């Protein structure tokens, strides 16, 4: 099923209702297509919801932590929504959690739009986090990937792209990786109709 912004709204509402019954209050941070669609950054659909972090406020400060493990009540509620809406069991998953190994884009927590669904709070990561993550995925999967297309649609400014590239370069020690990032950035600038450096 292609998840539109409206369907995502319905799914998060259903998930929140079940979490309330389970007496679980939880905040999650979402990236990827779900964040682009639900955050209305791009008019597109997605197949799943990528959860990159759990969030909590401690002394007024937002603290993000790895998304997994999630409480069993959360898993049960996700499975129930999967059944009720005929979705794959991993319609909401924490696969992208592995990003924590090399760190999240800097300042990601400053650009999150929060929405509350009963006892569930969902943070949709904005451009500051999405552009670096999308650039990283594009370097990995090439200009034919959905990530590349997302980047084109996000149309990052030169400053955004430069900051993103700086972070992406820290994600891999490979001999040619930095060069690959530079090439991808340059290719993107051209695709966006901008002259190269």
């Amino acid at each position, binding site marked *: 099923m292609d998840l539109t912004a409206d369907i995502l709204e319905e799914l998060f509402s259903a998930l929140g209702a*079940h979490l309330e019954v389970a007496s679980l209050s939880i905040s999650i941070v979402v990236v990827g297509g779900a964040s682009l669609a639900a955050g209305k950054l791009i008019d597109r659909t997605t197949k799943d919801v990528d959860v990159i972090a759990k969030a909590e406020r401690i002394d007024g400060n937002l603290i993000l932590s790895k998304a997994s493990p999630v409480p069993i009540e959360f898993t049960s509620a996700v499975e129930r929504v999967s059944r009720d809406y005929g979705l794959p069991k991993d319609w909401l998953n924490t696969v992208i959690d592995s990003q924590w190994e090399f760190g999240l884009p800097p300042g990601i927590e400053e650009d999150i739009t929060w929405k509350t669904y009963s006892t569930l709070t969902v943070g949709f990561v904005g451009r500051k986090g999405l552009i670096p993550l999308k650039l990283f995925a594009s370097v990995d999967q090439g200009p034919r990937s959905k990530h590349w297309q997302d980047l084109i649609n996000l149309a990052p400014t030169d400053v955004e792209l430069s900051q993103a590239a700086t972070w992406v370069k820290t994600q891999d020690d490979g001999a040619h990786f930095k060069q690959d990032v530079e090439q991808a950035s340059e290719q993107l600038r051209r695709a966006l109709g901008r002259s190269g450096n």
Partner: protein
Amino acid sequence: MNNFAEHWEEAGIKAREIALQLVWNQWSSLGSMARSTSFKNKNRVIDPESLVLTSVALQKEERRLTEVLAWWAHDGTGLLSVQRMKKMASKTRSNGKDLFSEYAQLAALCGHRSWNNYAEHENQPELLHNHQKDTRLELRGPENLLLRLRATFGVGAKADIMSFLVSTPQFSATVPEISKYLDFSNKAVRDALKDMNVAGLVRESSGRPASYSTNQLAWVDLMRSKSDNKTDHPEWALWSAIFPFLTSAMEICTAAVSSSLNSFLVNSYARDLIETYQYAFEFHQIELPDLAEYPGREFSAAFLQSINSLASWAK
């Protein structure tokens, strides 16, 4: 009122109507002064534990059931299995334990000591004064097959299994199937079938898993009363699934109409209910819609369709 709310209201009314018609029909078959209803099919074998639990649950809907229950507590409790009823009550969606202890109180007050331990409620002597003193328990007809065998051989797994094997439209069944349909443990069913096989009253198939059957026609002939129509044949019915399905459906629909549960939960719980009792719909070949075609909050339409199919079967 939107379509979804109308679905829940209609489904709730229909579930209540079916449940009440069925219980009155069955009580009238047991000889109570309850009037028979417009439901025609009276060959379906009565499951007394299911009937009692459902009648206790429906007392709030129909106070006259209180009189019938008081009568049954006096005259029929000896034909009930305490353990089976307790087990069935524990599987009921919400207040099964309360329903069981409410009846246990009644049975205990009527002098049935084996129920004393389960009677937790306050005394309800007014119920006992109301009971139908002129009514006699009459166990006739194919629908009373199980109670007649219990009255003859005693309350236990063997009488119930024989009733099932005599009346199942599938003609034979495996141990897990019998356990599921009769609410006994696999071990109790296996032990009983072993003895019944030794006695030559049931046949064991050579295949694996083994299935068990009996000479249905011989038993039907043996059990036939003078007044019975010769074509009448008892039919096993999964009342232990149908009745809790209906009473739970009533609860869910009430919650939906009163908005005491939000629409996500109502639809999800209704889907749980259909999934839980899907085996009974399949056993009786009651048509269910394709549940996958009714995602999320659209499920109310599938639920109403399921109740309508059940109503057609019940009549």
